């Protein structure tokens, strides 16, 4: 038939010459000549339709070979109106080949199509439906919907089949043309059609609907599909549907796809499928032809896609291993893909194929390699992750296909995050990944990475911080791509500045390195913004010394034409002033208890609000014994135990982001009446144990007792910070961290520590504590003592770290919060005072007093009703935390020196506990009510006097305040 004798000589020669060309240039020459000829010929009038037809075939060639033949498009449209069926079909074919669905010319076809669809000649209808299927567009879908739907009940099967497919397109183009109900009814009639070809077409429609997610409404049809599949595999179809004696393979595959979607995660539906699935797989497996493999493969996919069944899985695994053992790469490809499916259900089937998988990786077949990578990705776990990531990175380095590389990049970072064996390994892998895939680093990748770093930093602490700071500052010495430089800047700014907060040399070194980068060749100006931000963060470190340099840099960039740089430079420059101010200030006090909310809370409680009561069960369980759990711990700790936590860095790192939440439930709520227990505390041991067991997130330090205190500190601070009112104390007293003291050994602790060490290797406690405070948010943040009882604690009252943390790269807003957070406490002051009458009634000062061992050493009653309390600083701190009736006031007084102050204290008849510069703490007890009074004062030469009085009974506070006001103001 290849003679082409049915063609005119001209067309015959043209096709022949095209067929004989051996190069693109030759071909182009012929086509260009042809285009010229065709253009002149088109002008001939009264061309016989046979000639028109041949011209269109030439046009098909012209366009197929890459040239423009738009000048004949209109002729194609004319030809569709031909009375001759063959010419009409060619007209339609040309339209579909030449015209875009959005072409305006198509409008000219609508009337013809409508007419043809309504034709009584079935062949014309079939032609028209074929054409509609290709040409229909949104603009005239409405005009054709009606006639097409009518044809769904046509007598001829081929018409019904095509009408079904066109209906699918109509629905894709415009949902409103056919209601969902109508559509469902019509496709149901489609699968019930007596002609298998119509039924087969309807499968496509079901499959599409299922893929779109409409699974539930078709579940009742599972039985129908199952029985259809059964009939097909049992050769119930006409043998015309056989392909290589295999019955209806494409129909089987379509049905399997449908069943997979129906049975996914649904045992009931899957149970209906298992049997037919088993026999379909068996029959397909019996063949050794490609189409049999195709069906086998689809069965495996179905088995791993529906609710898993052991027997079928075994069967599937057998088929897969046959694929994998084949020498044919197509079958290996199927095998690898099938294994990827199965692995997601059970990893065990991979083991026997390990060698094959490695072979496929080394294969010279890119496609196979790619699929194998996918498989590796899916089968990665902790054990094999190092080796797999290594392989993947190797491919990232060597591949030149950017789609493939992007895919690899995403996969490696996911695996690294999920399975990296150590932090160091994680960082190093990430850096290699960034180096070879820097073009794929976008904001998401970066932010995600930063989050991981900061989380790890919070978990592990200084060690990790130093580690990454070192790694990244080393990187700075090289030439870096901007994308990596941004990451480095962030790490140095965010983590480096915290780690070396007290280390001027390191800070200077880092700053130098960063400044150097400003002069290097940068790809984009946004990188400068990152560097500026990094500098600003470094500058907020306490030991920072290079203010002049950074100021000069900020000043320089304040003139920058890049608005972002300019804005940042201005912001940071301004902030730097605040920084200095904050660093210099002594009086920044933050009320961690948010006692300014006391009144509100009280009011709400009076209105019937539930008291805050964090999960008692958790607490009890964590404490081991319910009886001991809520008991108070009044000073059984020795001084040593409270010490040690405090290192020079306390307070500095207050602003690190944190992850303390998991310990929250262990806090005994301050409003927790039921939790309050009058029993004498059982001494240190159980209390020590408690936070250890609970505080899984809490740090472990080199010495056990220290650790406990820290834990409690954090917990307490969190708790009180969140709850606002803390009248009813449990053993979770705030124990302020003091200078480091030699550790005390506790056998119990050792064990616990070991356990926790396993859970959180190298967790360091000094980081932990500040971190935890911070996450509470700014208002609840600093658990501030009324007085810094230890000189090393002075920095605690300074919030430079806040600024540090708030200088987030892309979010300068929080800066304002940090500034406003400080005065907030003061703003609330008057309220606290005016509300004192409402202060909590659930207080039981007498009992509490009587149980407070440190206060039992009081001397006999003295003037008024007060007696001095002979307690030490730590006990003072404890008590301060326990008593929540704090009155804060700033007075203009006669007190201008320590002597004046002490005189005042003597008048009240309480005693001084400690004095640091102008800050004095005193304590006493009300001999009548046995309530305890704690006083913190800070005097000034100019007579301004800051006072905080904390007492178990609010009346004591009022009384003393009134006394002082009367006598000394």
């Amino acid at each position, binding site marked *: 038939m290849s003679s082409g004798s049915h063609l005119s000589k001209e067309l015959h020669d043209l096709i022949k010459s095209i067929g004989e060309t051996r190069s693109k240039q030759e071909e182009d020459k012929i086509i260009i000549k042809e285009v010229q000829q065709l253009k002149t010929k088109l002008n001939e009038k009264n061309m016989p339709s046979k000639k028109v037809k041949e011209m269109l075939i030439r046009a098909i060639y012209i366009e197929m070979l890459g040239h423009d033949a738009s000048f004949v498009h209109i002729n194609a449209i004319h030809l569709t109106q031909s009375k001759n069926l063959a010419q009409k079909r060619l007209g339609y074919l040309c339209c579909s080949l030449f015209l875009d669905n959005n072409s305006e010319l198509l409008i000219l076809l609508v009337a013809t199509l409508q007419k043809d669809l309504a034709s009584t000649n079935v062949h014309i209808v079939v032609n028209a439906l074929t054409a509609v299927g290709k040409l229909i567009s949104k603009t005239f879908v409405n005009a054709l919907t009606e006639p097409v739907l009518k044809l769904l009940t046509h007598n001829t099967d081929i018409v019904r089949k095509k009408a079904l497919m066109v209906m699918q397109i109509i629905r894709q183009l415009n949902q409103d043309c056919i209601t969902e109900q109508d559509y469902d009814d019509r496709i149901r009639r489609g699968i019930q059609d007596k002609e298998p070809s119509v039924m087969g077409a309807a499968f496509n429609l079901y499959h599409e609907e299922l893929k779109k997610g409409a699974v539930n409404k078709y579940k009742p049809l599972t039985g129908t599909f199952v029985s259809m599949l059964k009939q097909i595999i049992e050769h119930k179809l006409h043998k015309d549907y056989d392909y290589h004696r295999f019955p209806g393979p494409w129909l089987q*595959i379509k049905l399997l796809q449908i069943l997979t979607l129906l049975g996914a995660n649904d045992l009931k539906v899957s149970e209906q499928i298992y049997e037919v699935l088993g026999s379909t797989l068996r029959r397909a497996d019996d063949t050794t032809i490609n189409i049999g493999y195709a069906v086998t493969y689809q069965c495996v996919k179905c088995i791993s896609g529906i609710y898993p069944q052991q027997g079928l899985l075994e069967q599937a695994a057998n088929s897969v291993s046959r694929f994998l053992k084949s020498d044919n790469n*197509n079958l290996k490809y199927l095998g690898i893909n099938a294994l990827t499916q199965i692995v997601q259900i059970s990893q065990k089937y991979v083991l026997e194929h390990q060698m094959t998988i490695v072979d496929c990786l080394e294969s010279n077949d890119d496609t196979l390699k790619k699929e194998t990578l996918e498989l590796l990705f899916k089968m990665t776990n902790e054990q094999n992750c190092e080796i797999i990531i290594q392989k993947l990175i190797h491919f990232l380095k060597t591949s030149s296909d950017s789609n493939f590389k992007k895919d690899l990049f995403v996969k490696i970072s996911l695996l690294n995050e999920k399975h990296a064996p150590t932090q160091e390994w994680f960082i190093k892998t990430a850096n290699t990944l960034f180096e070879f895939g820097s073009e794929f680093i976008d904001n998401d990748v970066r932010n995600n990475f930063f989050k991981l770093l900061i989380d790890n930093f919070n978990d592990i602490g200084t060690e990790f911080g130093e580690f990454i700071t070192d790694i990244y500052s080393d990187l700075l010495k090289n030439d870096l791509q901007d994308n990596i430089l941004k990451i480095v800047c962030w790490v140095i700014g965010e983590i480096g500045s915290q780690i070396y907060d007290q280390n001027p040399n390191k800070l200077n070194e880092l700053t130098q390195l960063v400044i150097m980068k400003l002069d290097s060749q940068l790809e984009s100006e946004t990188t400068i913004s990152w560097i500026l931000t990094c500098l600003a963060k470094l500058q907020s470190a306490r030991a920072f010394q290079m203010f002049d340099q950074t100021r000069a840099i900020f000043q320089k960039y304040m003139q920058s034409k890049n608005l972002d740089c300019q804005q940042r430079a201005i912001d940071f420059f301004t902030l730097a002033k605040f920084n200095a101010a904050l660093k210099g200030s002594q009086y920044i006090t933050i009320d961690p208890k948010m006692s300014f909310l006391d009144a509100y809370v009280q009011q709400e409680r009076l209105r019937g609000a539930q008291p805050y009561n964090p999960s008692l069960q958790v607490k009890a369980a964590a404490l081991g014994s319910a009886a001991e759990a809520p008991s108070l711990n009044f000073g059984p700790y020795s001084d040593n135990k409270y010490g040690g936590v405090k290192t020079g860095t306390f307070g500095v790192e207050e602003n690190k982001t944190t992850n303390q939440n998991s310990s929250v439930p262990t806090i005994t709520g301050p409003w927790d009446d039921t939790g309050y227990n009058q029993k004498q505390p059982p001494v240190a041991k159980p209390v020590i144990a408690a936070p250890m067991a609970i505080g899984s997130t809490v740090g472990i330090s080199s010495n056990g007792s220290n650790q406990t205190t820290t834990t409690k500190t954090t917990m307490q601070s969190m708790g009180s910070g969140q709850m606002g009112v803390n009248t009813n104390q449990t053993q979770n007293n705030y124990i302020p961290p003091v200078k480091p003291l030699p550790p005390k050994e506790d056998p119990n602790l050792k064990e616990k520590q070991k356990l926790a060490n396993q859970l959180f290797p190298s967790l360091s406690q000094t980081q932990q504590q500040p971190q935890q405070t911070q996450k509470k948010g700014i208002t609840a943040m600093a658990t501030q003592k009324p007085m810094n009882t230890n000189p090393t604690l002075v920095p605690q009252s300074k919030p430079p770290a806040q600024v540090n943390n708030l200088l987030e790269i892309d979010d300068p807003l929080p800066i304002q919060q940090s500034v406003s957070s400080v005065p907030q406490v003061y703003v609330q002051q008057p309220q606290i005072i005016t509300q004192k009458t409402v202060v909590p009634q659930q207080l039981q000062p007498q009992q509490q007093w009587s149980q407070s061992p440190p206060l039992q050493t009081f001397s006999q009653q003295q003037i008024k009703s007060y007696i001095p309390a002979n307690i030490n600083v730590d006990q003072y701190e404890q008590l301060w935390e326990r008593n929540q009736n704090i009155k804060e006031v700033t007075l203009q007084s006669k007190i201008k020196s320590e002597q004046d102050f002490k005189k005042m204290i003597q008048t009240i008849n309480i005693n001084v506990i400690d004095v640091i510069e102008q800050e004095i703490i005193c304590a006493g007890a009300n001999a009548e009510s046995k309530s305890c009074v704690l006083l913190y004062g800070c005097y000034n030469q100019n007579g301004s006097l800051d006072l905080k009085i904390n007492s178990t009974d609010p009346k004591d506070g009022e009384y003393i305040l009134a006394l002082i006001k009367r006598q000394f103001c």
Partner: protein
Amino acid sequence: MINFILMVNKQGQTRLAQYFQFLSVKERMTLEGELIRKCLSRNETQCSFLEHRGYKIIYRRYASLYFIIGMDLEEENEMAYLEFIHNLVETLDKYFENVCELDIMFNIEKAHYILEEMVMNGQIVETNKTQILAPIHVLDKAKDE
């Protein structure tokens, strides 16, 4: 869904191209050129599947003519489409009797019609050769009239 079906010979000359989603003449040329180069670069032992420009490509060579199908990446059964190509070739063979490249060239519209019967809206609608060829025979008769 199937996005396109191509027949391209070893010289890189397109012998038939049917697209189910419109591409301009230029885009088609580029794509076809890239694809045939990729196919030619692969040897007999390598598998018949590729990924290219977000298409899953399945190809099969008959003498000097490559049959190439481009599908959505989500399409799941490559082997089924590989066999579909063979079914297409068998159908062409049944119609043309010992089909060769020239048959398709001289009867390009017929080859298109056969494809149109087998694939609609990018999905396989008919694999039964008798059903596929019935309308084509009707057209042949119509021409003779």
